[in-house]
């Protein structure tokens, strides 16, 4: 059933229920889960419950008559890293957007951080960070202004912005419009945006693209294995992916060709995907 | 002269009804072309199915 059931219980219900309370009255309004957002440790209760961070069962997503992602079954324990490989148009970005609650699955069950999607999508959104090809930042605004907007969207206190800008060594250029910064610097600001609300799950779409080696050094502790967060990395370099990932998913035309721990795999098998 | 004893306003009334039925008939004509296209696709597919069936009869695995 659609996630917006409460609005459609009765015809006039649509308008009445929206008008009554300004904030979206979801069936299970937030408040149950009280893990704080300011980077302090998660409450033990909710963390223990979420041993497996991601669990997908026969998740399907269609684009009209074409299937973008077909019957994907997979589960990633918390703290581990999943590498997603495959040719262009294989459904990698679709998978990432599904996990990021930007797309609703057309079939199968998708549970992210213990919350079934799309029913409890609002609960997950505060706990995941997506770093896509698009920086998702306004080019005309400065880094600080963009991050202040995203801080307000996530209900995060402002001091966190300065903290993160320091971590990615961008304090000096934080007050210039993004359009004057190079792609690499914008990518660093995007990384700050992704980590602003200290997400438990990182969804990274070729994170090291446009980053020079020095920048890679700087961001490694933030989005690398050292960060200790559950990560899903989409990348095109099989060798690099093997080093970083615990689990590898090979996608071809929306179907999972390879699902295996990274230890038993060698790059030649992965190269097979791109044939 | 017109067959029916139409009044002075006759042409307008006739015009209105003619326009109405013309539109309905144009609609039916468009649907007819769609029907022909469907029929052609169906013929194509039955032909394809028959070939598929025929090829299976020749070399049943």
């Amino acid at each position, binding site marked *: 059933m659609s996630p*917006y059931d409460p609005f459609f219980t009765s015809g006039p219900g649509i308008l009445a229920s929206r008008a009554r309370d*300004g904030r979206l009255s979801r069936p299970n309004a*937030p408040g149950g889960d009280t893990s704080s957002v300011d980077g302090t440790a998660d409450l033990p209760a909710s963390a223990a419950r979420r041993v497996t961070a991601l669990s997908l069962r026969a998740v399907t997503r269609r684009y009209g008559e074409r299937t973008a992602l077909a019957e994907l079954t997979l589960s990633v324990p918390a703290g581990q890293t999943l590498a997603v490989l495959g040719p262009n148009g294989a459904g990698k970005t679709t998978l990432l957007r599904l996990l990021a609650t930007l797309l609703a699955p057309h079939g199968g069950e998708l549970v992210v951080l213990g919350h079934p999607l799309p029913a409890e999508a609002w609960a997950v*959104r505060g706990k*995941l960070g997506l770093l896509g090809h*698009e920086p*998702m930042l306004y080019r005309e605004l400065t880094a600080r202004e963009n991050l202040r*907007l995203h801080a307000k*969207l996530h209900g995060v206190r402002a001091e966190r912005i300065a903290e993160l800008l320091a971590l990615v060594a961008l304090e000096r250029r934080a007050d210039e419009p993004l359009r004057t910064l190079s792609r690499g610097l914008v990518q660093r600001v995007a990384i700050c945006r992704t980590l602003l609300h200290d997400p438990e799950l990182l969804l990274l779409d070729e994170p090291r693209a446009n980053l020079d080696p020095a920048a890679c050094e700087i961001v490694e502790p933030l989005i690398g294995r050292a960060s200790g967060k559950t990560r899903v990395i989409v990348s095109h370099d099989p060798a690099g992916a093997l080093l970083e990932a615990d689990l590898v998913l090979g996608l071809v035309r929306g179907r999972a060709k390879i699902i295996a721990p990274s230890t038993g795999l060698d790059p030649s098998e992965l190269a097979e995907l791109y044939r | 002269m017109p067959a029916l004893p139409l009044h002075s306003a006759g042409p307008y009334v006739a015009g209105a009804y003619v326009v109405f039925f013309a539109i309905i008939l144009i609609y039916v004509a468009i649907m007819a072309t769609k029907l022909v296209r469907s029929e052609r696709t169906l013929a194509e597919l039955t032909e394809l199915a028959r070939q598929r069936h025929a090829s299976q009869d020749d070399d049943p695995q």
Partner: protein
Amino acid sequence: MTAPRTSSVVAALLRAQLRLELRTFESVPAMWLFAVTAFVLFHFGLDRDQLSGDLASGVLWVTLLLAALLAINRLYLADAEQGGFDGFLLSPADRTALLAAKVMTLLCYLVAVEIVAVPVFGVLLLQPPLGQALPGLLAVLALGDLGIAVIGALVGALAIRTQARDLLGPLVSLPLLVPVLLCVARATAPLFDPLHAGTLPLRWLVTVALYDALFGLLAFALFDFLLED
């Protein structure tokens, strides 16, 4: 993770939108120039030096409506092209906060335009002195702008992620705005009466207020479906 309060989200979005506009100046100046040019066009088109009564209110409101279309077309442009939608959808904030922010942004644009356009109209084309009509005019302007802003924000969101966005925006919003135009034009006509400042016809004000409220509720109910995929 408690979702942030909607009011602070709306305020943040509005501040970002207005800062974007102040930094790029892409909508409001264009609307100023368009409004003044339109008055000149009407002067040559109607070949009249002075306008009054319902002709004057018609010219004013048609100009404001068409100027608003410029803003409606550009309202979601930055979000669509620079991934603003995804950035917003990733946050647990309430979806309709974006609609509320966009409605207020459009209202700010319209007020900014009217601050310039109405006096210029008074000087260029309006025969009766503007001063006498001003108090009533402000009320009608407020209600008219609200209608334009609500429908503009909803239709803008509908049109922005389509191939023919610059065409669909105006094509869909204009018929929806005709009742607003009808009400505000009829309400403003007596204000511009050359002989004596007519009283404000409350019937039209109430109608446009109800129209705004109805489509406001509808926009809030439907907006979610335009964003989620």
